């Protein structure tokens, strides 16, 4: 069973605040990903990482940034949150030949 954790699970904040969404995995996976999902909609890849010190932007443009200083940790930061950032953010990790991705429980962000 996948062990991938996200905190907080729910976050309501005001416009202009800086926030960091945490993602950690205990499986030793090299590859990690962040997806954004609006309610009832598909997921969009916003960031990914192949390993420590590797980060790339995904298919959907995002104002967020990520870092990968440790293999198990892949935090996402918004320097100045806006209502348009309201969404669910899902973290995933993968490894192995088929790169099956395992998803965390998600962080539901609301920016007022």
């Amino acid at each position: 069973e996948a062990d991938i954790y996200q905190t907080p699970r729910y976050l309501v904040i005001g416009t202009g605040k800086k926030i960091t969404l945490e993602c950690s995995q205990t499986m030793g996976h090299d590859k990690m990903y962040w997806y954004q999902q609006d309610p009832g909609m598909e997921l969009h890849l916003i960031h990914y990482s192949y390993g420590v010190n590797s980060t790339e932007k995904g298919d959907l443009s995002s104002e967020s940034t990520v870092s990968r200083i440790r293999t198990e940790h892949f935090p996402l930061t918004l320097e100045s949150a806006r209502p348009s950032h309201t969404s669910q953010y899902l973290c995933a990790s993968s490894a192995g030949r088929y790169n099956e991705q395992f998803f965390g429980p998600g962080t539901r962000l609301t920016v007022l």
Partner: protein
Amino acid sequence: ELKVEQNPLFLSMQEGKNYTIYCNYSTTSDRLYWYRQDPGKSLESLFVLLSNGAVKQEGRLMASLDTKARLSTLHITAAVHDLSATYFCAVVPSPYSGGGADGLTFGKGTHLIIQP
């Protein structure tokens, strides 16, 4: 740009019936995945399909892949209420057709409601 289309997007069916969800994708792909998502929850991996003609089954769900037609199907046999969820297919483009590495491109999802 890789596009993934699912149909139907909404499906209401009765227990005991059979139905198929379709997933079409627009460019060459190495791998296709099916996921399940319950309301307010994360995604659960169902199937990984890696080659043309691949077929996988788990309980009442069976998934298949036709890479030449760029089509995958998820077949539900004798549906039960517990299968109510949203089902997503997701595709990784092949290395030589661009795309965000191993990042998944998702379909819009099929919202499935199974009524007693």
